[in-house]
C-alpha cells in the first residue's frame, strides 16, 4: 500500500500572534524579589505573598523528575513568568480591546457564549480579561470569577482550599506554580445547587517566553452538581514555552462534577499540568480530557476517592504527531469501601510521534468491595510512530475487583481497503477510521468542544488531506 500522508492539524486559527504589547513585563529568572513584585502587582493579602515565597523555597529545593520524557531543554531563567495584558477585567465584550478581541473572535468565544454557555472566563496571557455570567447563577449563589478576585473577595474559602488538594511539595512544577501562579478560574457551587449549563473558561498564551501558571479551584458542595469546561490553545513561538497550571477540584458528599478539557498547545510547549480531585461520599467525578499539541506533555489527572461509594470516571485521548512526546495518563486512589473507577484512555500517534499511557490505580486496604477498571487503546498511523503503556496497579486488599485491558494497534490495511471500495480516498478512509476511534471521547464533549475537537482531529485532518 502506498504511503499516505496525513497532514498535521491545521493550526492557523490557533497560531495567531498579537503584537507584543504589555504594560508590565517582569525580568527573567526567579528571585524572592520578583515573587514579591508579582504579589504586589496583584494587590494580594500578606498570606498569599508569604505562601508564594514558601513555594519558591520548596521549588528551589526540589529536583526535576528523573522519569518520563526529557525536559532538560527547559531553562527556568528564560521564562518570564508574569505578563499583564493592557486591559483590566471587563464584564462586557464591548470593553475588551480590539486586538485581544480579534484573537478571541477567531477562536469563536463570543459565538460560543451566545449558544448555551453560562459564563466565559477567558484568560489572555496571565490575567482574565473577559468574564460574564448569567444572572440566574448569581441568584443561586454560584460564584464564578477569576482566581485573583477570589483571593481578594473570598479569602476564607480560598485559604481553606488553595493548594490543599495539590500541595506544593508534590513536585517541582507544582512548587513553581505556587510561587508564580497567575489567573485561572474560581468556582463555588453551594450545597444542593445543580448548575445545568456547562461553565466554560478559555485561556491561551500570547507572549514569547511567557509561562502560563493559571490556577483553577472548583468547589462543588454537598449534593450540588457542575460541568466545567476548560480549553486552551496557544500561538506558536520558537522559544520553549512552559505550561505548569494547577487544577484543584473538591467534590463534596453526594456531589457531581464533570471536568472537561481540551489542551491544545503549540508544538514548542512543555505542558506539565497538575490536576487533582478529592471525591467525597457517594460523590462522582468525571474527567473528559483531550490532549493535543505541545512538544512534551506530562499530564496525569488524579482522583482520590475518600468517601464511601465515591466514583470516578476518566475518558481521555491524546494525539501525538511529528516531534511530539505525550506522556499522559490517569491516577486514582481508592481510600474508602465501595468506591469505583473506570478509565477509558485512547491515543493516536503518527509521523514518529510518541504516546505513552502512564497510570496508577491504587486500591488501599480499607477500600473493601471497590472496583477498578482500566482500558487503554492505541492507534498508530504508520510504522515510525510509537505507543507505550506503563500502568502501575497496586491493589492492597483481596476484597476488590480490578481489571486492566490494553490494546495497541496499527491502522488496518483491510479496513482502509474496505472504505476505499466505497469511494473514499485512502486519506479519507484513514481519517474516518481515526474519527471513529476518537468518537467515544468526542461524544462526551458538549457541542462547542466536540466542534473544537472535530477541528483538531476530524475536520482539520480531513480538510488537510481531502
Amino acid at each position, binding site marked *: *500500500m*502506498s504511503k499516505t500522508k496525513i497532514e498535521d492539524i491545521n493550526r492557523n486559527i490557533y497560531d495567531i500572534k498579537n503584537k507584543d504589547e504589555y504594560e508590565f513585563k517582569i525580568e527573567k529568572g526567579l528571585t524572592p524579589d520578583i515573587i514579591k513584585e508579582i504579589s504586589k502587582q496583584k494587590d494580594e493579602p500578606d498570606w498569599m505573598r508569604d505562601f508564594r515565597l514558601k513555594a519558591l523555597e520548596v521549588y528551589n529545593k526540589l529536583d526535576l523528575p528523573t522519569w518520563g520524557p526529557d525536559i532538560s531543554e527547559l531553562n527556568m531563567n528564560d521564562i518570564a513568568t508574569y505578563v499583564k495584558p493592557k486591559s483590566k477585567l471587563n464584564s462586557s465584550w464591548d470593553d475588551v480591546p480590539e486586538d485581544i478581541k480579534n484573537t478571541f473572535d477567531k477562536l469563536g468565544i463570543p459565538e460560543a457564549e451566545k449558544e448555551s454557555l453560562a459564563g466565559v472566563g477567558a484568560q489572555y496571557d496571565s490575567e482574565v480579561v473577559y468574564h460574564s455570567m448569567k444572572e440566574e447563577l448569581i441568584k443561586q449563589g454560584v460564584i464564578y470569577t477569576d482566581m485573583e478576585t477570589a483571593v481578594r473577595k473570598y479569602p476564607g474559602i480560598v485559604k481553606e482550599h488553595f493548594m490543599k488538594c495539590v500541595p506544593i511539595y508534590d513536585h517541582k512544577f507544582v512548587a513553581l506554580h505556587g510561587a508564580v501562579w497567575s489567573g485561572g478560574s474560581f468556582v463555588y457551587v453551594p450545597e444542593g445547587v445543580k448548575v445545568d449549563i456547562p461553565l466554560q473558561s478559555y485561556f491561551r498564551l500570547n507572549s514569547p517566553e511567557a509561562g502560563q501558571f493559571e490556577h483553577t479551584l472548583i468547589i462543588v458542595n454537598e449534593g450540588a452538581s457542575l460541568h466545567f469546561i476548560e480549553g486552551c490553545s496557544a500561538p506558536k513561538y520558537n522559544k520553549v514555552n512552559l505550561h505548569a497550571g494547577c487544577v484543584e477540584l473538591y467534590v463534596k458528599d453526594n456531589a457531581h462534577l464533570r471536568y472537561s478539557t481540551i489542551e491544545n498547545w503549540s508544538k514548542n510547549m512543555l505542558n506539565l499540568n497538575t490536576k487533582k480531585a478529592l471525591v467525597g461520599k457517594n460523590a462522582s467525578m468525571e474527567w473528559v480530557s483531550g490532549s493535543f499539541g505541545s512538544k512534551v506533555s506530562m499530564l496525569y489527572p488524579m482522583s482520590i476517592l475518600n468517601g464511601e461509594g465515591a466514583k470516578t470516571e476518566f475518558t481521555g485521548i491524546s494525539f501525538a504527531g511529528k516531534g511530539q512526546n505525550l506522556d499522559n495518563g490517569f491516577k486514582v486512589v481508592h481510600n474508602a469501601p465501595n468506591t469505583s473507577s473506570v478509565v477509558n484512555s485512547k491515543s493516536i500517534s503518527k509521523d514518529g510521534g510518541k504516546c505513552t499511557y502512564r497510570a496508577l490505580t491504587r486500591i488501599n486496604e480499607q477500600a473493601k468491595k471497590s472496583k477498578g477498571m482500566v482500558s487503554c487503546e492505541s492507534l498508530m498511523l504508520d510504522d515510525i510512530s510509537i505507543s507505550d503503556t506503563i500502568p502501575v496497579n497496586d491493589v492492597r486488599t483481596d476484597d476488590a475487583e480490578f481489571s486492566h485491558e490494553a490494546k495497541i494497534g496499527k491502522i*488496518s*490495511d*483491510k*479496513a482502509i*481497503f*474496505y*472504505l*476505499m*471500495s*466505497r*469511494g*473514499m*480516498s*485512502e486519506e*479519507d*478512509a484513514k481519517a*474516518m*477510521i481515526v*474519527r*471513529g*476511534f*476518537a*468518537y*467515544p471521547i468526542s461524544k462526551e464533549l458538549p457541542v462547542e468542544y466536540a466542534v473544537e475537537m472535530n477541528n483538531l482531529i476530524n475536520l482539520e485532518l480531513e480538510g488537510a488531506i481531502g
Partner: protein
Amino acid sequence: MNNNLLEIKDLYVNAEEKEILKGMNLKINKGEIHVIMGPNGSGKSTTANAILNNPSYKKTNGTITFEGEDITNSKTDEIARKGIFMSFQLPEEIPGVSVTNFLKYAKNKVTGKPVKIFEFKNELKKYMEELNMNPSYMERSLNVGFSGGEKKKNEILQLLVLNPKLAILDETDSGLDVDAIKTVSKGIEMFKNKKNAVLIITHNTKILSNLKPDYVHVLVDGKIVKTGDYKLAKEIEENGYSKYRN
C-alpha cells in the same frame, strides 16, 4: 451501441507471493447476471479483489477495462467511483462510525453530490425494511457486533444505496440460513436492471435458485474452464468439480 461493462483479459494475479489467477478472461455486459463457481482456492475471491485493485494482490499480466477504460492499475476508490461495488465476504468492523454516517459519506463520494440527510434517512429506512433489518442498526457502529447474516445484509444495503453499475458479490451467500439467502436475493433483484450487471461469486448454488443467471463460469486453478447457462450450475450441484480438475 456498446453494451460492454467489464472485460478481463489474460489476467495473472499473485496473492502472498503465490500465483492464483493464471490467464483469466471474462466479459460482462449490461443487463447480465454472471456467476463464478469454483472449489476453494481456485481464485474466486482473488478475481473480485483484483477487479477492485486491492493492493495486497499483485497483477503480473493482463488488463481489466470498465466501460472501455483501462482500470487495471487504478486506485480502489477511483474504481468504486466509476461504478464497481464489491460485497465483502468478511466485511470490516469500523468502531465509532455509524452505518448512517458511513453510507452518507460514501454516497457523497460515489455520486460527487451533497446528500440531503432527511431524504437519505428515508431511503435508508425503506431499504432496511425490505431487507428485514432492524432500523436501530442505522445508528450502530459499522459492522461492530453484527452477526454474520447482519453483516451480509448490510453489504446489500450498501449496494442499494450506492447503486453501482456493476455489483460483485463475493461469497455473499456463504454462512447464511435459507431466510437470509432469500432476503439477500430479494435485495439483488431490487438492484438489478437492464443498465447494470451482477457478478456472483459463490461455491454453492443455493442463492441461484432465487436469481436467474445468464452465464455460469467454472473457475478451476486460476482459469475459467467452462462457461454455460443455469444448467451448468445444476450440474455442478449434482456432480461437483471433479470433472473439471486435472
